[in-house]
């Protein structure tokens, strides 16, 4: 298989995402396309990751968990970036679309992040001998999940839709801005007893499989967010239904 394949698929997926965002008629079927691509790629994935890609020199076969772990954390970051954009957009112009999308992206982001961090801890055990080594990347990701679990809690704790949307937008912005500072502080904090440093030249085959997984997870992420968005948006529409719908008897 040519090494460029995943990049080509990725371009297609991104194109479809843009079409989904801007062309309403695409929205009816695009999630099926994402799901289809994800399923097909997922069927090939075990072969690529477990057999086709060469084993890593030092960590051996265990390193193959990276093909699941790393893209999932990437997707979490991507989803939370979407959450940040929606938060800013909501504060600039009130819209239930951006509010529902913020809710969907935060929830899906937390899910991907949690799976990614768990896989990272499983990877750490055979590699470093412990599940948790306070590795800056893993630690930052874990704190990030806790921050966004707080965000989701706030959403549950405010009944008024307008206030919920505004306050969670404020929190979405504050949380996202915190991430780079968090990254630097954890990195410096742990710099004294950091074990692994990896200035490795990565095998192009490995990069190809990593890209393959990332594209597959991007499709899955899109499906999840699209569906979660539909649920959130429908819930919001029901909440903010105009007064006539709620009290039909009155004048």
């Amino acid at each position, binding site marked *: 298989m040519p090494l460029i394949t995943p990049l080509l698929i990725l371009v297609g997926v991104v194109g479809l995402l843009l079409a989904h965002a801007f062309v309403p008629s695409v929205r009816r079927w695009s999630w099926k396309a994402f799901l289809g691509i994800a399923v097909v790629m997922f069927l090939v994935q075990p072969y690529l990751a477990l057999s086709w890609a060469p084993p890593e020199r030092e960590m051996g076969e265990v390193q193959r968990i990276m093909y699941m772990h790393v893209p999932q954390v990437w997707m979490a970051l991507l989803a939370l970036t979407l959450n940040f954009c929606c938060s800013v957009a909501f504060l600039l112009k009130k819209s239930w679309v951006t509010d529902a999308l913020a809710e969907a992206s935060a929830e899906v982001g937390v899910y991907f992040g949690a799976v990614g961090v768990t896989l990272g801890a499983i990877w750490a055990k055979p590699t470093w001998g412990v599940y948790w080594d306070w590795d800056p990347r893993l630690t930052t990701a874990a704190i990030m999940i806790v921050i966004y679990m707080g965000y989701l809690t706030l959403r549950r*704790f405010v*009944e008024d839709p307008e206030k919920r949307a*505004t*306050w969670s937008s404020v929190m979405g*912005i504050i949380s996202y*801005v915190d991430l780079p*500072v968090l990254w630097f*502080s*954890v990195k410096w904090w742990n710099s004294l007893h950091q074990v692994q440093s990896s200035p490795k030249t990565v095998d192009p085959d490995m990069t190809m499989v990593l890209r393959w997984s990332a594209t597959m997870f991007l499709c899955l992420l899109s499906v999840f967010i699209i569906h979660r968005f539909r649920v959130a948006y429908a819930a919001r529409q029901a909440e903010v239904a105009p007064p006539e719908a709620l009290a039909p008897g009155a004048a």
Partner: protein
Amino acid sequence: MSGLLGQSLLVLRKDLLIEWRTRARLNALIFFAIATLLLFSFALGPDTVMMRKHAAGYLWLGLLFSSMLSLGESFRIESENLAMDGLKLIPVDPRAIFLGKTMGNTLLLWLLSLVLLPVTIALFDVTVTLGWPTLVGIFLVGSMAISAPGTVYAAIASHARARDVLLPLLLFPILIPALLAVVKATHLVFEGDLMDQLKSWMRLLGCFAIIYWTLGFLLFPKVLEDD
């Protein structure tokens, strides 16, 4: 017209006046903080070497826990009789309310840190190696860093259900960078700064404080006003 800064200072003055008139509450806060430090000593056993090494961490955890109480309290007085609505209607610029209350919370926390310092020195047998002005400065910047996001989140939590649970839940994870930086900086002042790390930690803490004062200033009106 008293302007943004004038209004901020009036809000600050009002908060300090209330704090002074309810000194008993302030005393309770100080005793809570001291009790927290004592509890750390008991929970970690009488290993003096280890306690001295971690004193900066205990001090700031004690301050962090106390700040949850003081931040919550600073917005409880505003929800009594809907006083915050009254301020908005005078009218007071919401950004002035943010600045005034954040300055008030900073001063309170700073005062608390200065009270806790002798207790820390006595309990954990630390020495101030790098000089008092540095330490007092670190305490001030640390208090500023906690107070700005603290004020925004306390305002949000004070209007939500279960505010007492919500505030630490939202605030603690956000504050981790500030906590790391301020604990490291305080630690270096206690233990000596052999590798010249203090500056970078102070820079990180300063960045955090600036970012959150700016964000709070910009976002607080959204928290307070219906749009």
